[in-house]
């Protein structure tokens, strides 16, 4: 459309009356930029409307001014950040509506202005609040995590204890199994003579076995059941050869208590029977007669 077309179209009148849809409003605004005569015509229509409206002007009640200013203040305080931006922008557009006198007023009373600082302090308040919120949130999270970690640690300790117990149990089982295997192997080994020794004390169940490999003069003792030796005492192993007891060494207290197999410390040269007696730690030259607990004869 050319400038004349706009002017004669009736759109400019509708534009000033505010009865155009947004799209056509923009169209007219664009034409005003391109054609000075269109802008002039719009100006003329505006002048006509203003002229007419000024004839219809009614002075509102005097108290309304303060009331409206209060409403503006209200709306401003609830919309501070928003307005701060707007006020900045107005600097670019407002000069066209400022009278020189008005400028004088504003420059002579700088203390009455509303600077941007309120909106700044609002934003720092928000920032402060945000920092606090983050901090509080962090502390809570830490407590939760710490608690979680703490309970995890407790669980871990419990598990470790359990695992340790199971390990101990397993070691015992393995040791027992190894003992049985060793016994089984020794029993099966050619030339090894098992000599079971039984309790000489009525009412006290006790037992141990000597595995003697006569050809090599070596022997093992397997403890099935013995009472734990009292403090400072130890079990002593004897071979009875030609009716005389010959010490073949001491039984480890650990083996005596836990059961198990132990190599007989001394060489076993000869014997028709074996015995175990309770002696002072380190042993005696001859067994204490009433402390002979176990005796076993070589099978014939």
């Amino acid at each position: 459309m050319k400038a004349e077309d706009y002017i004669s179209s009736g759109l400019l009148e509708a534009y000033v009356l505010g009865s155009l849809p947004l799209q056509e409003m923009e169209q007219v605004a664009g034409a005003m930029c391109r054609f000075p005569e269109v802008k002039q015509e719009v100006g003329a229509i505006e002048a006509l409307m203003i002229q007419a409206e000024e004839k219809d002007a009614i002075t509102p009640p005097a108290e309304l001014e303060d009331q409206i200013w209060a409403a503006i203040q209200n709306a401003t305080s609830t919309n501070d950040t928003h307005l701060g931006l707007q006020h900045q922008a107005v600097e670019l557009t407002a000069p066209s509506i400022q009278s020189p006198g008005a400028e004088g007023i504003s420059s002579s009373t700088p203390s009455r202005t509303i600077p941007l600082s309120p909106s700044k302090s609002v934003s720092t308040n928000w920032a402060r609040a945000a920092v606090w919120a983050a901090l509080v949130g962090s502390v809570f999270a830490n407590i939760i995590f710490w608690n979680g970690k703490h309970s995890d640690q407790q669980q871990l300790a419990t598990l470790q204890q359990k695992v340790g117990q199971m390990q101990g149990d397993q070691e015992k089982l393995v040791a027992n199994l190894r003992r049985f295997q060793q016994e089984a192997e020794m029993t099966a080994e050619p030339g090894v003579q098992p000599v079971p020794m039984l309790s000489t004390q009525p009412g006290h169940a006790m037992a141990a076995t000597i595995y003697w490999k006569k050809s090599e003069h070596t022997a093992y003792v397997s403890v099935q059941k013995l009472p734990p030796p009292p403090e400072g005492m130890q079990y002593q192993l004897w071979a009875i050869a030609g009716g005389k007891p010959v010490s073949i060494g001491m039984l480890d207290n650990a083996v005596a208590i836990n059961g198990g197999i132990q190599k007989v410390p001394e060489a076993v040269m000869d014997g028709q029977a074996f015995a175990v007696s309770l002696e002072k730690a380190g042993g005696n030259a001859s067994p204490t007669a009433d402390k002979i607990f176990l005796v076993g004869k070589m099978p014939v």
Partner: protein
Amino acid sequence: MLQQGSREGFNYLYKNYSSVLYGVIYKVVNDEETAQDVLQEAFVKIWNNIAQYDAGKGRIYTWMLNISRNCAIDKLRSRGEIMKSKIQKGEHVVDNLTNSRRTEQQTDTIGLRSMVAGLRPEYHSIVDLAYYKGYTLDEISKVLGVPLGTVKTRMRAAMQQLRQQFSI
């Protein structure tokens, strides 16, 4: 001044424009108390949106007039809708309202409203619907059952007639 949001800036606007804006609002809503409420709404809106005013698109005077008029029309519509649904329906409402308005305005001042009332009926209804009821050209065309092109032509002719009245 305005950009600083000062009381002086407000005083300046209020002193220079409040009576015209109040006059326009009153003409639309026809009730003093309502007009005062609407004037307050309009000033708050103007104050909060002044950054959006674009000097390239028209005078600030017209911009403020349109904001005030729209506030008033919004108020009127929120009531008019209720009335419409209660009493009548369809486009007859507009004609009836227009006619009743016209008789009311006989006793009005010699301003725009009275000048509009003095227009030829086909011009009068268009300016009245557009300016005092906030109808778009499209809506006017539909309500009056007149082609859009004719509405535009009449709009132009109406304003030309007003212009002549003023220049006399």
